[in-house]
């Protein structure tokens, strides 16, 4: 393709001076922060509340797509059970929120920690497998988590857990059902953190390790890259991000049930990564925003959303496997 959107963007960024870059980054951040106030414009969603949509699916899908991108896009590990980490985060919030006096901010690190731990536990035995087998095992893991949740009455069984407390007031900002802005900005904060983290890691040893694993794992091994260690780190970080999203989701929805964490969600997140441009932060964000927001905006495709995702996967893979904003094609040093 002669016109590469991502490289154009990268070009503008590289040519900008330091103040120029601050202006660009700052401008983008301010735009993102102001999004909840644009509900009165053409961006409004007809059926669900605009602000609620910004949190879920848009914001949380972006967050999860960034997490899955580290695993699939950067490291080339096909994880089809990503929703499991989201579920673990959500159930942690649900159980601790309803049974202890801990609040959202205290539960958040616990949820992240538990999700990360399960990422490591899952990864240790399975990351020795390659490609297809890893995909199937992770799919199995995702389903096992859901089925266990479904059949364990102690955590609500098929009825799930309700009455999850909302986060406490934060600097006079209230987290309520009607006013979802606070939730959105919390998610946005997490997204900014994750972007910072990914950019940091990409230009250093972990990023190089992940890239080399994705491009040619056997050779990476022979060049001294500790592939197993970094694969597990990729899983762990991805899981941590998924778990964080889950905690926020539970606090926002105030109710969790096994049917919310199905294989479909894993596939949807994967579609965001693939559609946007694997390995590339901006592509992934774009993909997630489009695929999460559009069905809410355009009612008639909402029921066929999953069908469109399936078609997206097939068409993208066959025609433009690199995504809308593919990773760099030109000679530039390792960016995100």
């Amino acid at each position, binding site marked *: 393709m002669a016109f590469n959107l991502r490289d154009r963007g990268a070009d503008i960024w590289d040519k900008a001076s330091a103040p120029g870059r601050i202006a660009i980054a700052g401008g983008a951040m301010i735009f993102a922060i102001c999004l909840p106030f644009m509900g009165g414009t053409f961006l409004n969603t007809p059926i669900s509340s605009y602000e609620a949509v910004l949190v879920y699916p848009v914001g949380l899908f972006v967050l999860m797509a960034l997490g899955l991108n580290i695993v699939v896009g950067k490291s080339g590990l096909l994880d089809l059970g990503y929703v499991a980490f989201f579920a673990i985060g959500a159930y942690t919030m649900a159980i601790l929120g309803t049974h202890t006096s801990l609040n959202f901010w205290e539960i958040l690190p616990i949820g992240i920690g538990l999700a990360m731990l399960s990422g490591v536990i899952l990864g240790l035995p399975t990351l020795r497998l390659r490609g297809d087998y890893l995909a199937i095992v992770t799919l199995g893991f995702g389903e096992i988590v859901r089925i266990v949740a479904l059949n364990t009455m102690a955590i609500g069984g098929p009825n799930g857990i309700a009455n999850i407390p909302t986060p406490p007031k934060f600097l006079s900002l209230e987290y309520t059902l009607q006013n979802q802005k606070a939730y959105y900005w919390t998610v946005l904060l997490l997204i900014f953190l994750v972007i910072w983290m990914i950019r940091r890691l990409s230009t250093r040893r972990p990023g190089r390790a992940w*890239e*080399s694993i994705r491009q040619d794992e056997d*050779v990476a091994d*022979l060049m*001294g890259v500790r592939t197993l260690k970094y694969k597990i780190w990729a899983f762990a970080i991805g899981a941590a991000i998924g778990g964080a999203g889950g905690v926020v989701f539970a606090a926002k929805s105030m109710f969790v049930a096994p049917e919310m964490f199905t294989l479909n969600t894993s596939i949807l997140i994967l579609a965001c990564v693939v559609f946007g441009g694997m390995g590339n932060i901006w592509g992934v964000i774009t993909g997630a925003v489009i695929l999460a927001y559009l069905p809410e905006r355009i009612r008639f495709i909402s029921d066929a959303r999953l069908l469109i995702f399936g078609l997206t996967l097939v068409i993208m893979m066959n025609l433009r496997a690199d995504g809308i904003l593919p990773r760099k094609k030109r000679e530039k040093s390792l960016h995100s």
Partner: protein
Amino acid sequence: MTKVLELKNVTMQFGGVTALNDVNLHVEKGEILALIGPNGAGKTTVFNVITGVYKPTAGDIVFNGNVSLVGKKRWQITEQGIARTFQNVRLFGEMTALENVITAGDVRSKSGFVGSLFGMPRSRREERENREKAMELLKFMGIDHSAHKLGKNLPYGDQRRLEIARALGTRPELLLLDEPAAGFNPSEKVALAETIKKIRDAGYTVLLIEHDMSLIMGISDRVAVLDFGTKIADDSPTVVQNDPRVIEAYLGVPADAS
């Protein structure tokens, strides 16, 4: 004369096929040892067994007289100080030349994941040093002008040179070169021969698989010959060249065999 590497009675069997049969071989520090033999003799298998791609069915591989490599993980073997190139170029095509070499250099870094994430001083210092060293290696191999080109966009000759630079990036003691001259024209082969000598003179030990006899005879200190997985000769180039068994195995392969 220290033995950098020694293969002791190494046998490698794949199901019913014996690729290496009781091979005894050693590489002395600072020498250029050439490994030759007809196609299918097992030369690349030797490399694979040394670098841990395969575990030998029998025998031992000893590094620097006291470290057994058998059973070690591949990255551990690289960490010990052995690096290789490949018969078919296998670069990290979507990384730049510089990044390829920096990635190889990471094996020498002590900083871990957390250090990289939070930009700890040691991590930053290692990054800088690694980058400088990588540039030096690219200069050494004569490809520093392509430092920021993607591996897959380099011309073939530069790709081969980059593979060598990348292997050197792991700061090895022993460098394994698998048919480094494949696809080169005569003048490129002459340049490569000079480069290999330069590498040896810089302190590395080289074990090299090649088919081009004049290249080998010109730079090797010793030549080992494999045929059907068995070592049939191991001596100075001139002796090996006149060994009847070697001649029979090859049936007189012409000098420019690529």
